[in-house]
């Protein structure tokens, strides 16, 4: 609660950006609060056939069909074993509403521009896959990986029709 109050005070500084931060596989991530619509406890989803494993399925959010991505799987760390403790972050991106399954929501943090560092250029293979990290936020000695929601979803676009058609030909 303390930190929330603090955040609200810091909000007065205009250049600061607020992030909803959360844990996935022990790591600390942040998503711009402007993109986050709501936070929902994990509920059963209906799996979509023949989609990447990171696509957990769809759920009913007040009449809208919302797809849920398993963020751990998006980062290539395997599937989450969700329980009611786990959380769906519902975000809005380019008019689409999607959810991210994460381990737990931690806080709302404000970062001023000089608290956000560009991610290092010399990436290893694992980081290459995570090019959705747009910046590293520093607060109280803890690093928060700030995610670019566009890339995050862009990486997860399912195999579309044309690719599917092309597949057998490539094998020839």
């Amino acid at each position, binding site marked *: 609660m303390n930190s929330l109050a603090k955040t609200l005070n810091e909000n007065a500084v205009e250049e600061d950006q607020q992030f909803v931060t959360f844990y996935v596989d022990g790591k600390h991530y942040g998503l711009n609060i402007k993109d986050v619509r709501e936070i929902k406890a994990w509920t059963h989803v209906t799996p979509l056939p023949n989609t990447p494993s990171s696509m957990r399925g769809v759920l*009913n959010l007040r*009449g809208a069909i919302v797809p849920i991505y398993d963020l751990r799987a998006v980062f290539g760390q395997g599937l989450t074993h969700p329980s009611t403790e786990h959380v769906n972050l519902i975000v809005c991106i380019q008019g689409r509403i999607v959810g991210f399954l994460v381990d737990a929501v931690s806080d709302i943090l404000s970062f001023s521009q000089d608290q956000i560092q560009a991610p290092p250029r010399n990436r290893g293979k694992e980081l290459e896959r995570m090019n959705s990290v747009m910046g590293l936020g520093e607060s109280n000695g803890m690093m928060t990986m700030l995610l670019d929601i566009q890339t995050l979803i862009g990486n997860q676009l399912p195999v579309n029709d044309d690719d599917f058609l092309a597949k057998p030909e490539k094998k020839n």
Partner: protein
Amino acid sequence: MDMQSFRKTYFEECHERLQEIETLLLSLESGDYQDEHLHAIFRAVHSIKGGAGAFGCDHIVSFAHIFETVLDSVRDHRLALDPELMEVLVTSSDVLAAIVGAAEQDQILTETFDAKAKADLSQYMDGAEHAPLPAAQASSSDAKKGTSRTYTIVFKPHSRLYEKANEPLLLLRELGGLGEMILSVNVDALPDLSAMDAVGGYLSWTITLTTTHHKDAITEVFEFVLDDCDLTITETDRTVAGEMKPTPPLDASPAIETGEAKVSSIRVDLDKIDRLVNMVGELVITHAMLSQQAEKLARDGYPHLARGIEELSTHTRELQDHVMAIRAQPVRMAFARIPRLVRDVSKDVSKQIKLIMTGEETEVDKTVIENLADPLTHLIRNAIDHGIEDAETRKAAGKPAEGTISLSAGHRSGRILIEIRDDGAGLNTKKIAEKAKERGLIENPDLMSPDELHQLIFNPGFSTAEQISNISGRGVGMDVVKRNIQSIGGKVYVKSEAGVGARFVLSLPLTLAVMDGMIVRVGSQKLILPISNILESLRPRRQDISTITEGGEVLDLRDHYIPLLRLNRLFNIPARYDEPWQGLVLIVESEQTTFALFVDELVGKQQVVIKSLEENYDPVEGISSATILGDGSVALILDPASLYDLHTKQGDSLAFAA
């Protein structure tokens, strides 16, 4: 209602009228000459002009006026309707549409925008000696001629005129605009103040007007109040007196007008209807939830509840049908533009084409209609440009020089089928095969049936047109058609016979909102299959299932072998039963084929509200959309045709992997 919403309504009406004008002009052109058509066109142009005046759209007024004047001459048979004039009229209706469009968007057109059309029209105006030149319009200066005349006008409003909130002052001012006016008011009929009715008509005016305009222009000023006043217009040298009650320019057809009056309708914002449709959708879900709960209760214990829920079900369904009917519109709306398209395109490529349209009254949801315009346009253009051969080739092939394109619509098993058929050369199977091989789409064309090859034209970037014409053949075409149709849950396929013609069939859902579904279960998942696709369900015997070497499985259905699809394998779902003879198969019909689908069990029939999956995600093969079940969970709706496609693709990849 503020001015803005009136304006919006005006423009909506304009678009309807313009559409009407176009349709009528085309039927005139096609030889179906009826005076009534001309009257109707005249009325439509006139209404557009009338409204435009009220909203200060001078450009519309000035153009519509000239247009109307020429039309007036034609309908009075002072001008002969020859093909040349026909062309001018058609062009003018386009120009008018462009001007209206610009006014709607508040764009300012250059003064010269309509100069050519105006000049073309004026040419006919000069030819028409008695062309009435009502002059409340700026444009009349172009055509103004003749000597000035003096009229004496006696105008005595009845009290009804005041009751209808007309203001004589405005009329008199407008009259003053026509020329020099001397006005005197007659107050003889005015009673004592005590006996006076505040809205009574006691005053009359005598007006002496010197003007260059024709008498019709004066009548026009009083057009809307003719029934509610006594009006005498006298020309000083030649006396043309008498009651002007029957309005000469507008009495065209009382029969039609009363006909229109009988159809009472209101204009409703589409948003409002959509909200209604959504609410009904929610109601259907709530109903499903309630009946699911009620099933758990002992029926004997709560007889009233059970009956209530049954009644609720009937009412809900009925309500839904009615709401859907509001959105349903005849497919004519989408077909209306086609005759014009055929006319223009065939002129461009100089081919003679006859268009036959049938089934225009077939009703379908408005959203479907809206999404139909582009694909139809594309297919028709293609048929004219590529399908129909030129006259010489046709004659050489022993066909009539005039090509025929038929466009038809009809209902079939809960869907609407739209067929575009031409009697041209048909698809060039050889060229398609070459192109497909060149593009790497297929390996060996000889292994494919002509029918399979034909479907390849729906691949992106596939166009066999050697020359890029401005009609079609830019390489974006059929794939766009396919995508558009698919996006509204439709299918498109082509049948073609060399030398005989090609036939494109669009199969579309009637509504995009609700359908009857059969819930099936595979493992722990519930999925929904449209009832309209299910022929029957059965539990096969072990010996009915056979495996074809390298060709998948088939089911022996009363001595017919049909492909067997296992939903659990297609979708990778762990099922309760491993073999069809333990579970159940559904015989499913899709547009192209009939197949058997193996599932664990049937759960039951339910009306489901279709929710888009693509709103927040991307298309998933085998799935058309999703719905929400009574318990709030999401169930996927299967799409038989794409399920079968998925089956064949999986078969392919298995074969390639092996």
